[in-house]
């Protein structure tokens, strides 16, 4: 279940694929630099457990309240700017 493909950035799970130009951060475990010498890299049991713990949290279903909240915030802003323009 926790295969490599699954461990992509969280954005992939929320279905908001378009217009994510702020997603500039690099993918985790970017290759060799995270390898041998890294105390939390793939050779470290603690490192592996940490990522398993975190990925498990990330893969939880996200409550609707967050996208609702953002829609509300966006709605407020549009109303405000519309009144300003008048």
């Amino acid at each position, binding site marked *: 279940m926790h295969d490599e493909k699954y461990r992509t*950035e969280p954005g992939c799970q929320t279905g908001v694929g378009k217009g994510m130009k*702020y*997603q500039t*951060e690099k993918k985790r475990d970017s290759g060799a630099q995270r390898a041998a010498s890294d*105390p939390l890299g793939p050779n470290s049991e603690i490192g592996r457990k940490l990522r398993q*713990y975190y990925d498990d*949290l990330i893969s939880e279903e*996200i409550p609707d309240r967050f996208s609702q909240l953002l829609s509300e*915030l966006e709605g407020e802003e549009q109303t405000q700017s519309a009144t300003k323009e008048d």
Partner: protein
Amino acid sequence: MSATLSFRNGLLAAVPTLRAFAVSLAKNADRADDLVQETLVKAWDKQDSFQPGTNLKAWLFTILRNEFYSQMRKRKREVEDADGAMTAQLSVHPSQEGSTDLADFRKALELLPEDQREAIILVGASGFSYEEAAEICGCAVGTIKSRVSRARSRLQEILGIEGERDFAPGSIAIHTTNVA
């Protein structure tokens, strides 16, 4: 307008990792969700201070972390640990009951002091560099490094994992070889 839309999408995309970080800090799913909610509202209000092209995730983590510590200070003043024991009991995350291995790890993480826990989560799980983690926590890179290192040793100790300081292939054999 389209800048607003991509900002919104960026926030929404960051929600899963923000929640994971919030749960790690707050040790409680409900509090974590409140933290994420507060973070989104704050981020929205401060939208103008975010520079497009810079790391949105790091920016959001900073907001969430600040929110966590300011709530904690407030709570400490309000109820001096009166509900501390209860919070600990409520902290079980339903999805994590399945694996004892994972449950053990979670308990071990919860035993760490906050500063060590957040450092090792940021660097070891959220995918930030030591430099980024230092910026998020508002401290020196060396401080983050030593916190991560102490957290790692402590976790190894609690979980009974042998020291991993040497990554020579030979040392792995010790753990994997069965008693013949």
